[in-house]
């Protein structure tokens, strides 16, 4: 017999009547608090997606440079309006 049920059975002798009780009932007698952070999964996935996307984007620019394409850099020429 599980310890929990043994305890309740002893109470039956000492204190009074136990209503019909199952193992599940005995488990319910425990106390629990849940801090549900499972919805953060979506946020973390999006953060990971951002990192991967930016990394991929930057590598694609490097690849263009390695292939002999002109690097993307700000123009040294002064703007006509300056």
């Amino acid at each position, binding site marked *: 017999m599980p*310890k*929990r049920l043994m*305890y*309740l059975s002893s*109470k*039956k002798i000492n*204190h*009074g*009547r*136990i*209503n019909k*009780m199952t193992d599940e*009932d*005995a*488990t*319910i*007698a*425990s*106390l*629990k*608090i*849940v*801090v*549900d*952070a*499972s*919805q*953060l*999964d979506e*946020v*973390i996935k999006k*953060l*990971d997606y*951002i*990192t991967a996307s*930016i*990394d991929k*984007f*930057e*590598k694609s620019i490097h690849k263009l440079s390695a292939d002999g394409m002109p690097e993307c850099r700000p123009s040294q020429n002064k703007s006509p309006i300056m």
Partner: protein
Amino acid sequence: MPTFAEQIANHVAKYQRRLAHVTQGTVIMVGKAVVERSPVGRWELWSDMWQKMRPANTYRAGEFKGSWSYSYGGVGGDFPSTIDASGSTSMARFMEVKTAPTAARHFIYNNAPYAMAMETGTHPYVSKWKLTPPNQRGAGAGAHMVQLALNDSKIFVRTAVAQARNMS
């Protein structure tokens, strides 16, 4: 100088650390509140009958306070039955949240067979059962440590968020 991708990665890592801190901080603060409010047995308040059945030299208070546990994903079925009136053993168990996944359901639980009675003062399945006066508040008065901890839960989350904002 870090590349653009590295800068973004650093920002993302920072936000992940902040998210983890909010979750871990909340779990630890809720756990601390529930342990601090958990009553410890006081043999001197027992009835004469119970004192005769269980002499003082055979009783060590602190089983309930020392038996709080932590798990994530699902609630555990264990009852460590640790005698610790200070509650530090229970607090040490809550620190396991620091190695747990952030995005999960985190459980703080106490599987003592009399746990619900400690909360409410009455036993859910045993009629005529009353808790020996905890904290001298009278027969049948529960400690309501879970309810009181949950009442403060918004403060715990806000505190954890404020702390996370200061993280670099």
